[in-house]
């Protein structure tokens, strides 16, 4: 029976500050009641304000960065839950449940090239992964981070990935309207890199972004027989495995077994394309 991670707790936290980023995003910095050890990128927390302005059900957000005992979250303001957080005053009291979920796999493999595909606010779980990988000694030249969005303002915080690029990680952007980087989407950019011989044919893919992008990544991985991991977002009622509201269809022949659904919150949010299918 999938259970919440053993390190998950309900913590009280204070909002330190809210920094606007891009067209509709914020980076929320919160200080939990106690400092957390370094977390695996793409784990997440359920967040809500405790002053009654947030909806009852907290919202899931990937950890973006850990800094000075604080947690940062990159949030696209979309509805009631995200708006309440983005508009919270400094010092606001928050409930923070986490850390939850499994997180990205380690970028291991001596000769493997890793292609990280981010779409819009799906950028959130990547810089911390790259940072941690470099610290573990992964060669920067083996990491290729492609970040796409509809337009430049939806690529959000570009400073951190550009810093990583200066340390040897390949960082490229793509926008549907051509306002920044490659004119097109990240899959198109990936194809171009392959066509130009800029990337080995054998790569491992990590992807986080909107559903159509993840569908395309899953298809690509199957067609090219590539290993791929998707960090999924679903509606979540609890984040800890008790509401059953976040089913992800499993592959009948996959390693998760014959059961038709995985729980995104406690079995994910990162799944291999051998485990689940977006259909």
């Amino acid at each position, binding site marked *: *029976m999938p259970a919440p991670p053993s390190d998950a707790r309900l913590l009280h936290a204070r909002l330190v500050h809210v920094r606007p980023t891009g067209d509709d995003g914020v980076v929320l910095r919160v200080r939990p009641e106690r400092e957390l050890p370094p977390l695996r990128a793409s784990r997440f927390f359920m967040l*809500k304000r405790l002053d009654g302005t947030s909806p009852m*059900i*907290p919202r899931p957000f990937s950890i973006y960065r850990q800094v000075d005992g604080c947690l940062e979250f990159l949030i696209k303001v979309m509805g009631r839950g995200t708006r309440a957080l983005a508009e919270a005053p400094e010092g606001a009291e928050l*409930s923070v449940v986490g850390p939850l979920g499994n997180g990205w796999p380690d970028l291991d493999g001596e000769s493997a090239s890793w292609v990280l595909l981010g779409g819009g606010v799906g950028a959130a779980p990547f810089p911390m992964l790259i940072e941690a990988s470099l610290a573990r000694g992964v060669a920067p030249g083996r990491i290729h981070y492609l970040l796409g969005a509809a337009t430049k303002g939806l690529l959000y915080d570009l400073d951190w990935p550009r810093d990583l690029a200066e340390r040897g990680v390949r960082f490229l952007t793509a926008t549907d309207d051509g306002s920044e980087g490659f004119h097109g989407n990240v899959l198109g950019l990936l194809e171009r890199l392959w066509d130009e011989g800029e990337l080995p044919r054998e790569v491992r893919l990590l992807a986080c972004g909107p559903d159509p992008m993840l569908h395309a990544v899953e298809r690509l991985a199957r067609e090219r027989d590539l290993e791929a991991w998707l960090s999924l977002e679903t509606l979540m*009622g609890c984040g800890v*495995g*008790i509401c059953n*509201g976040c*089913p992800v269809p499993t592959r009948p022949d996959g390693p998760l077994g014959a059961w038709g659904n995985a729980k995104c919150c406690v079995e994910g949010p990162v799944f291999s394309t051998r485990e689940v299918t977006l259909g």
Partner: protein
Amino acid sequence: MVDLAVSLGSLRLRNPILTASGTFGHGLEMRAFTPASKVGALVSKTVTLEPRAGNPAPRISETEAGFLNSIGLENRGVEHYIAHTLPEVAGADTRIVTNIGGESVADYARIAEVLADREEIDAFEVNLSCPNVHGGKLPFGTVPRVAAEVIEAVRAVTSKPVFAKLSPNVTRIADMAVAVEGAGADAITAVNTLLGMAVDWKSGRPALATVQGGYSGPGIRPVALRCAWECARNVSIPVIGCGGISSVEHVLEFLVAGCTAVQIGTASFADPTLPGRIAGELDGELARAGIERVGDLIGTIRDGREAQRG
């Protein structure tokens, strides 16, 4: 030190706080948030004879004052429950209530029979009222005679306490309560979710894949309280209140209205420490009111006209 113990039939609980079925897993996996030892009982998610894949996504949706769900009783069936869940809950420092569901009277009888001798289980709660199967037709939840048949069938195969979980989606819940009492239920859980739905008028899309689902959370508390009160004054078996409870004050309101115990449901999604925390606050709250035994509060609701005069 207030005496918090209550009895549901022959089942003695350390306090009147239970988790609601389908809102706390099997309970033990949540120990980092609410240790089993804090609550009176842990109620399992509904177990059925055969595995059920459940409904497609979206299965949940939040509304202004509550939560819609249409999970569809996803569970891996009773064999899996016996092989994997019961060993995990064995020896738990609380009472274990197994919630059972079925699609026919025979189904209910069979699953109760299969589980009847399992000593890990302290009581059964019979789910007569899931709105998310049978296309929301609630066959066992709305006809007193049929509900009674189900309870009789379960009663016949087990000596463990049997709770009947009722639906609020009926004209007269008292008729249901009287029927299940007559059929041998040891307690009544009132209530399951209200049928509800939500739709986005611009896209025309319903919020749930099954269109309608079960509505729970703060918005249903007045309805649940009324249902529990109506049950309590029409039967002599204990009533377990359920619906929108998220604070110790809410618990005490249900007790005053006639409930012997309560279940914490949707509120656990937002704060899984809540069942344990509410249980921990009961003692102080009752002590401050000068109440020595929680039982002394049960059913002390006054006449409405008298209450207005203070």
